[in-house]
């Protein structure tokens, strides 16, 4: 059996069997030319299927035609197979402990009724979004551009919770743990930390709603940490424990995993790997084409709508330029109004190609402090991809 045949078989068996309830799926066959493998998880629509255990699901690009990514289509990425599949809100508590005078055990109702609610529209993007475009290829989740989404998050600021817990002087870090558990005792539990000052900046929040609805279980029900402008690895799902520390936090997921070269744009050479590394942190600036999608066929002599979304870590998108000739010439795209500094910003253009043929479209975003996108980029983990995107289309 060759590799191709093998991968077909693996893909084809798909979700052949379910848990003990033995629900049987119905499968339908898509177009033979498509390599896309879709799956539907509980509370989710059909998503691009990376892995099931733990779940890693990518958003199909067409959902980005909406400014707010629907909950059912929002990407999913867990690290440990022991993810929560049942939560009893009568007994669930968010525990706040450590270097505090007043440890707290808060129910979701407590959060909703005892604290001032805040809302923020913010992009969440996986550190490894677009990993499959790095050359040479690197191991890891082979995401295309859909490990990202934009949502309105509603909840309570971490500041208000920390203040109620009366943090003692000398706090350094705050760690955040969720309900997921490692498959073996030797595997590090997934816990992330922010500096105390960052956690208390008034923007970091504990969200109980996403686009005005409760979160889907696989997106972190009932509570999720929201860290605007920072990569998704910090957005701990099914958040259950907040611990204030009088010292730096250390674990595998901070000291070994999720590190980037301490160099502009997290880039290093495959031939000369960086020795100096730091934890991944804020988003770099990037744009993603929404329309057209790769290999789409456009019409000559008529206007074709081109659009995309661009974002950064909160400075704001000031310019997006579009090229329809492979980067030889560039013209400004129109920017939609800003809907929040941590939201993505939609850009649009209309393009009337005169002649039939193959064209390469490119889009380049620049933010308010002049940061723009990379021409080349590589790192061993496949993080922070922001190379100027190219979309090849046919006009026919």
């Amino acid at each position, binding site marked *: 059996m060759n590799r191709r045949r093998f991968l077909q078989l693996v*893909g084809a068996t798909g979700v052949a069997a379910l848990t003990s309830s033995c629900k049987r799926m119905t*499968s339908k066959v898509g177009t033979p030319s498509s390599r896309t493998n879709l799956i539907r998880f*509980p509370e989710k629509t059909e998503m691009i299927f990376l*892995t099931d255990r733990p779940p890693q699901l990518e958003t199909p690009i067409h959902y980005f035609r909406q400014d707010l990514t629907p909950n059912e289509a929002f990407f999913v990425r867990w690290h440990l*197979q022991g993810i929560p599949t049942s939560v009893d809100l009568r007994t669930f508590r968010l525990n706040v402990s450590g270097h505090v005078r007043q440890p707290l055990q808060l129910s979701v109702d407590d959060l909703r009724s005892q604290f001032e609610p805040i809302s923020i529209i913010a992009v969440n993007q996986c550190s490894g979004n677009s990993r499959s475009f790095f050359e040479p290829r690197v191991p890891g989740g082979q995401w295309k551009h859909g490990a990202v989404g934009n949502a309105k998050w509603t909840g309570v600021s971490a500041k208000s919770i920390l203040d109620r817990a009366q943090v003692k002087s000398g706090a350094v870090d705050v760690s955040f743990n969720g309900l997921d558990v490692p498959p073996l005792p030797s595997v590090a539990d997934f816990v992330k930390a922010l500096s105390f000052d960052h956690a208390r900046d008034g923007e970091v929040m504990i969200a109980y709603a996403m686009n005005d609805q409760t979160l889907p279980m696989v997106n972190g029900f009932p509570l999720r940490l929201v860290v605007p402008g920072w990569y998704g690895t910090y957005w701990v799902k*099914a958040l259950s424990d907040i611990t204030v520390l009088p010292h730096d936090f250390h674990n595998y997921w901070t000291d070994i995993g999720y590190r980037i070269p301490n160099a502009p744009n997290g880039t290093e050479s495959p*031939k000369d790997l960086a020795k100096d590394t730091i934890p991944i942190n804020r988003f770099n600036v990037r744009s993603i084409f929404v329309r057209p999608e790769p290999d789409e066929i456009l019409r000559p002599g008529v206007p074709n709508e081109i659009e995309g979304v661009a974002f950064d870590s909160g400075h704001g998108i000031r310019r997006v330029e579009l090229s329809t000739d492979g980067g030889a010439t560039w013209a400004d795209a129109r920017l939609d109004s800003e809907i929040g500094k941590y939201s993505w910003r939609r850009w649009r253009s209309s393009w009337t190609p005169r002649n039939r043929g193959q064209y390469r479209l490119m889009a380049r975003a620049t933010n308010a402090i002049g940061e723009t996108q990379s021409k080349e980029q590589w790192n061993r*983990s496949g993080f922070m991809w922001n190379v100027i995107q190219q979309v090849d289309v046919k006009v026919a």
Partner: protein
Amino acid sequence: MAPKTKNALFSLGLTALVAGCGPSSNISKEADHEITNATMGSMLDSKPDSPIHTIVMPHDEPVFPPGPGRDEFVTACVVCHSPRYITMQPRFSRTVWLAEVNKMKNVYGAHISDEQVLKIKDYLVSINGEPDAAHDPSVAKYGE
């Protein structure tokens, strides 16, 4: 830190995998195409107003071709994660796959001997490998 199990039940990983319903009957038909479009209807077991929110997770049950190292692979790797962690990757060299298996043993503490590491590596190369490359940058990956 309070015990997590107070708050939630967890998916049972292998138990659920083993308790599945067996392979679907139309594998060969679907295998002629490269898409599996799995629709499952509602997998939400919770009642609308219930304080207990529960989902039922789907599980993959791929068929692996016979070959040296297959038993070690199925026993040691699939305990902790979906085999799609291998099949979604591009073809990697022997060096990369060896580094990945060693990472599972040394960093994540997979219960495998050095001898099993080599067998698993050989199996991964046989199903998703490429000829040895002169230089392999991915070996020193940061572990995510």
